[in-house]
């Protein structure tokens, strides 16, 4: 593995290996002294063109706990607006002989493009509305901690699919692991060409969340509705969205009635009261904080497999 750009880069064996390593790393996380010497002498640049708290900090902690030198470079807005091309920006960084560039960019495909230009390994930490492969890995890890292997398990992904990189990566990784995936969204938030896409990738489509919940899925993943979408004409009002697609208190009960073991995920940050009610967010079935905790372990696993040799991880 040289880069991690898309969840489609990972075979089932790759995902299994990364999740197994993440479990080892998760053990390390519970030690008093968390430092491993694994990546000593390696330099990781966290290049974040877009605001991020949890993803950037979890990559930074992951690198530090493995003794890598991690440097954060953050910039708001694209380099285009500053007159410098993206290529110039990343070539400047690559010229410093770094080992890994973790990139978050507001433009789809940015990580892919950067990987063509630099010698360093590139990790996609979220590119526009395209993908977020480490999020999908940590979601899978978290769900498996609670549910066991995801093969044959039923997962519903609900919300703004069009603009969600979390959905795109999750749909791929969940299918790679053999899960049964149902997508739930209003028609205006279903991505272009989703019909052919769903048929090709074996995804189910619906706009009826109640029907999906009544069928007792094993996991329900609620996606964040971005504030800027609310005035974009994708749906009439936040109230109408919540009535149609929010995981409300009543829907939480319906889900629990149908499947008492079902878990709830949300990649955060949550809009409480919009796509997820406080009752659901804080319910015993909610994995929201487990997801954050797993984020560090999963990113340690990714950095380890990209940058370390073959010796034992922990």
């Amino acid at each position, binding site marked *: 593995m040289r880069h991690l750009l898309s969840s489609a880069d990972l075979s089932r064996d790759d995902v299994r290996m990364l999740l197994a390593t993440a479990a080892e790393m998760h053990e390390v996380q519970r030690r008093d002294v968390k430092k491993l010497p694994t990546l000593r002498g390696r330099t990781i640049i966290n290049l974040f063109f877009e605001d991020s708290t949890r993803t950037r900090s979890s990559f930074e902690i992951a690198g530090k706990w493995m003794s890598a030198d991690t440097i954060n470079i953050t910039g708001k807005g*694209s*380099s*285009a607006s500053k007159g410098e*091309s*993206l*290529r*110039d920006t990343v070539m400047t960084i690559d010229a410093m002989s770094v080992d890994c560039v973790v990139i978050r*960019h507001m*433009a*789809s*495909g*940015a990580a*892919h*493009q950067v990987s063509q230009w630099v010698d360093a390994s590139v990790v996609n930490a979220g*590119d*526009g*509305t*395209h*993908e977020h492969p480490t999020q999908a890995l940590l979601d899978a890890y978290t769900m498996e901690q609670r549910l066991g292997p995801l093969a044959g398990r039923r997962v519903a992904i609900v919300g703004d699919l*069009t603009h969600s*990189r979390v959905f*795109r990566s999750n749909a791929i990784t969940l299918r790679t692991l053999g899960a049964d995936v149902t997508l739930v969204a209003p028609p205006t938030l279903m*991505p*272009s*060409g*989703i019909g*052919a*896409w769903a048929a*090709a990738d074996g995804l189910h489509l619906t706009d009826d969340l109640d029907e999906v919940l009544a069928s007792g899925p094993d996991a329900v993943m609620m996606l964040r509705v971005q504030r800027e979408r609310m005035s974009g004409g994708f749906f009439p009002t936040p109230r109408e969205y919540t009535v149609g697609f929010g995981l409300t208190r009543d829907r939480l009960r319906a889900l629990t009635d149908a499947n008492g073991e079902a878990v709830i995920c949300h990649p955060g940050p949550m809009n409480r009261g919009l796509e997820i009610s406080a009752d659901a967010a804080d319910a015993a079935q909610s994995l929201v904080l487990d997801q954050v905790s797993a984020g560090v372990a999963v990113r340690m696993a990714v950095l380890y497999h990209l940058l370390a040799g073959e010796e034992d991880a922990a």
Partner: protein
Amino acid sequence: MSDLLITGVTYLGPDGAEQRGDLAVRDGLVAEVGRVEDVSGLDRLDGDGLTALPGFVDLHTHLREPGREDAETIASGSRAAAAGGFTAVLAMANTSPVTDTAEAAERILDLGRAAGLVDVVPVGAVTKGLEGVELAELGLMHRSRARVGVFSDDGHCVADGRVMRRALEYVRAFGGVVSQHSQDPALAGAQACCHEGELSGRLGLPGWPPVAEASIIARDAMLAEHTRSRVHVAHVSTAEGLDVVRWAKARGIAMTAEVTPHHLALGTDLLAGYDPVFKVNPPLRPTADQEALRAGLLDGTIDAVATDHAPHARHDKEHAFVDAAFGMLGLETAFGVVHDLLVTTGSMGLADLARVMSVNPARIAGLAGHGRPLAPGEPANLVLVDPAATVTVDRAASQSLSRNTPWHGRTLTGAVHATILRGTVTAREGEPAAC
């Protein structure tokens, strides 16, 4: 100007059938065709294996001067045009400043003449500053030395129906035509950069749906009918848009249309790697659209092939895909692409190619000296093509100042051997003449 004897060349007779013989060019005009009696004072050019066609006319070229002389100049673009077999190019108005006054148009005309390799014909903006609000000085541009007859806000759609109506009414008085960039900005905004469909969904790129093109073409067809004026559809890219053009023509509406070589030959799938060299507006479309466009070109629904030659400096293409500039080079590869795609496959003959790359675009633009039959007394605006030559496109060898060609590394059958503008050889085997 030297006088020429082109020997043993294949050419199109009055009936369009291919014939072989000698051609004499004197004083910038075709002097004799077939058998040349008087060869005195003529420089010989061996035409064996070559076919003489009327010089190509490009309805859609971006030369970037004034404003972005780092990407292209009128001189460098002229070199690329001559190398590609063109004897006339229409220079789009989206320069900086915009070509929206008589003075600006005359300046482009003069710079083209100074370069001297191709007739550079300025296109006038429809609206001031391409802003789509107030009409530019259409009449003054027409009355200027540049005799502007084609108007376009290309790069932008004249989206306001009232503005488009007024423009059509106004240019009708002097026989002008509006070339429309058909893109409803409400349906395909400035960020739209990938054909809307499964691939745009998977890639997370803003989609550009066919309806954004077809609905504007339909509106413009109705406006052309209502105003009894003439409208030209720039770079039609979708089967839906093409169907509307077909309907409009059947109804007798004065609508013409062009297609680019890249929309004929390149597909949406090329965007999968996020390489901005394949970012163009309108975007590359799926196979079914390419096939429909080829059929439309063959059945005459589409009148012309136009390059939409759009040079960009490297740093404007090396951004993230959605931030990178739209457009690709086209002048030097247009003949090879069309020939390779449609002539070598037997879909069309060289006479058809001449019709869509020279005769029809010259007629649409009202260029009297171009796209003419090969007959004594006609202006000697010619291209000699070698249908058997194969060329592997090398972007480093381009005459353009830019390198954003999507054809790099592709091998094409059919090459331009020489270009002749009013009797003067302006390029030979891809190398422009020193001027």
